[in-house]
């Protein structure tokens, strides 16, 4: 069977010494970043991206993806132990995970979280392996109109599925698109909006923007508004989950995995919303909902599984269609493009070793995370004691060198500085930067396909609704928008 053959190829790629090392490095860095507050996977990926340009693309993608899903696994550790979510996706885990820890049941909570994550991650990988060829096949009949609609769908869904105001999120996307316009117009060769800066001829470096918006702005905000770190209150004394725990958890794990897998594929903050959705679902289905908030294991099992299934399926649109579903995916897409690989339906045929190698190594990474997260919990907790004032100079230095190293350009570092300031303004005004970077990376693809679609249709804008697949995509977008707009399963919007 084709799938077995491909998985065999993937195994041979994933199990080389170098790639195993990259996988471990990614998972470890991801765990570190997931545990430490003040730095997240997107900022880390942005920071380390320049280093990966000198690496082989397969190893680079393995490492970067390890950082991404590793961080999602690890955020629950601090949520349970310290009532402090390492990642926004772990906020719900605090609600029932920490009361469990306070009652001396930290071990059980951590165990269930870890096994739920592993199961969910494995299912995610299976979905990735089976759905991708189907999706790629389906997209063979995609023309420029379909791609345009897909990208519009990605941008709008990302806006609807976030918790910020719809208007500002779409505006951020449009602004991101504009930033993508800056530079030389490929079709006509004219310089657009460069204002005489020849360094902008190649466009605004997305690494500079990402580092500025996500890493530098975050550092400034953390220094300006420091968070109090609570002292260690819970001890982990090797308590395995009881039979009752396992009996109560297996259905939430299954439900969470299903929910997370679905949410993760949709562009937007899928992983974040999936954990909230799972918590809400478990509470609604529980026989005694009043247990929630006091240490109900379902409140840990479900959301954690949802979170991790979503983290894996989040890769599907990027790997199969070349359309990133989130900021981290956008960065990885950009990294692959710089390495000369255009993710999309062709990647499976042109670079099968990359595609299947990454998929298999995701599963390997999930296994490594079991070891990293459970027995080594104590180490990570201790690392949390590093004061932020020792961390941020290192982050800042690496950011500067990283951005500089992309094209040996200090102009890029200046850009990063500018976007750091812009990032602070947006953070203060509750404008999410993720849609911006998504749009920035997608702009060339959007404009080119839009142009071509209009050229082929003879200037007829209705082409996007007369072609059936394109119409279907747009209708799906509208349906998702209506479905989710008033029922966003996230925390109450910051009004």
């Amino acid at each position, binding site marked *: 069977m084709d799938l077995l053959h491909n998985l065999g190829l993937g195994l041979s790629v994933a199990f080389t010494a170098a790639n195993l090392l990259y996988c471990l490095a990614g998972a470890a860095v991801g765990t570190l970043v997931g545990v430490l507050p003040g730095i997240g996977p997107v900022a880390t990926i942005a920071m380390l991206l320049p*280093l990966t340009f*000198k690496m082989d693309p397969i190893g680079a993608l393995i490492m970067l993806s390890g950082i991404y899903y590793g961080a999602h696994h690890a955020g629950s550790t601090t949520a349970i132990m310290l009532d402090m979510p390492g990642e926004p996706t772990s906020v719900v885990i605090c609600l029932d995970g920490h009361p469990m820890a306070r009652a001396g049941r930290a071990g059980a909570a951590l165990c269930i979280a870890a096994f739920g994550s592993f199961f969910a991650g494995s299912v995610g990988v299976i979905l990735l392996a089976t759905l991708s060829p189907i999706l790629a096949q389906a997209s063979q009949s995609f023309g420029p109109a379909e791609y345009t609609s897909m990208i519009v769908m990605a941008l709008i869904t990302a806006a609807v599925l976030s918790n910020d*105001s719809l*208007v*500002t999120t*779409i*505006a951020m996307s*449009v*602004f991101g698109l*504009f930033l993508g*316009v800056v530079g030389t*117009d490929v*079709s*006509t060769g*004219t310089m*657009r*909006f460069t204002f005489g800066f020849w360094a902008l001829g190649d466009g605004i470096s997305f690494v500079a923007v990402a580092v500025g918006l996500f890493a*530098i702005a975050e*550092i*400034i*905000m953390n*220094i*300006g*508004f*420091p968070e109090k770190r609570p002292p260690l209150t819970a001890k982990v004394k090797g308590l395995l989950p009881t039979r009752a725990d396992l009996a109560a958890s297996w259905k939430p794990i299954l439900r969470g995995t299903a929910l997370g897998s679905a949410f993760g594929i949709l562009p937007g903050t899928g992983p974040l919303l999936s954990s909230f959705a799972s918590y809400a679902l478990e509470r609604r289905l529980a026989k005694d909902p009043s247990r929630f908030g006091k240490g109900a294991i379902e409140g840990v099992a479900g959301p954690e599984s949802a979170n991790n299934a979503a983290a894996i399926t989040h890769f599907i649109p990027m790997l199969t269609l070349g359309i990133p579903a989130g900021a981290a995916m956008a960065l990885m897409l950009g990294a692959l493009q710089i390495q000369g690989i255009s993710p999309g339906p062709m990647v499976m045929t042109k670079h099968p070793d990359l595609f299947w190698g990454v998929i298999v190594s995701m599963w390997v990474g999930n296994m490594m995370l079991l070891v990293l997260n459970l027995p080594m919990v104590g180490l990570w907790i201790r690392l949390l004691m590093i004061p*932020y*004032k*020792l961390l*941020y*100079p*290192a982050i*800042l*230095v*690496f950011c*500067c060198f990283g951005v*500089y*190293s992309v094209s*040996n350009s*200090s102009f890029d*570092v*200046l850009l*990063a*500085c500018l976007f*750091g*300031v812009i990032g*602070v*303004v947006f953070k*203060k*005004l*509750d*404008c999410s930067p993720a849609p911006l970077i998504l749009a920035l990376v997608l702009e060339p693809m959007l*404009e080119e396909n*839009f*142009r071509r679609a*209009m*050229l082929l249709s*003879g*200037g*007829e804008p209705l082409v996007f609704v007369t072609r059936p697949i394109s119409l279907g995509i747009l209708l799906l977008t509208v349906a998702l928008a209506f479905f989710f707009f008033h029922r966003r399963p996230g925390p109450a919007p910051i*009004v």
Partner: protein
Amino acid sequence: MPIKIMNAKQFLSGLIFFAIGLAIVVEGRTYDLGTATQMGPGYFPMLLGGLLLILGAAAMVTGARSSVAVSIGRWPLVPLLFVSGAVLAFALLINAAGLLAAVFALIALSCYGRLRHHPIEALVIFVTLSGLTYGIFVYVLQLPIELIS
């Protein structure tokens, strides 16, 4: 009669987007628009600028008339100044004066902010990070950066 703006965050972000949209449309008029079939360089940007004008205006209106009052709160001015100054210094110094000067300026400025470091602490950080970045970026990745230029 003064108009009360309820959601200051939304309003201000709308204002910013409106201003950006305006700037795009004004500058974009200098580019050839072309036709829908043969799009000139200015077609897409003008579209985007127009969208931003609309979205910005919408955000201003919804922000002003929001049902919940939201204020912006204080800005992290001191860290903003020092950290951006630090990165700026790095950008200016890395080619002109070399790695050591650039890292020194970066650490000196960024470690002055709210979280004041003990000078010895900052010095240790400087030495460690200089060594580390030299090792990784110059030795391993072979970037053309000199220690002192």
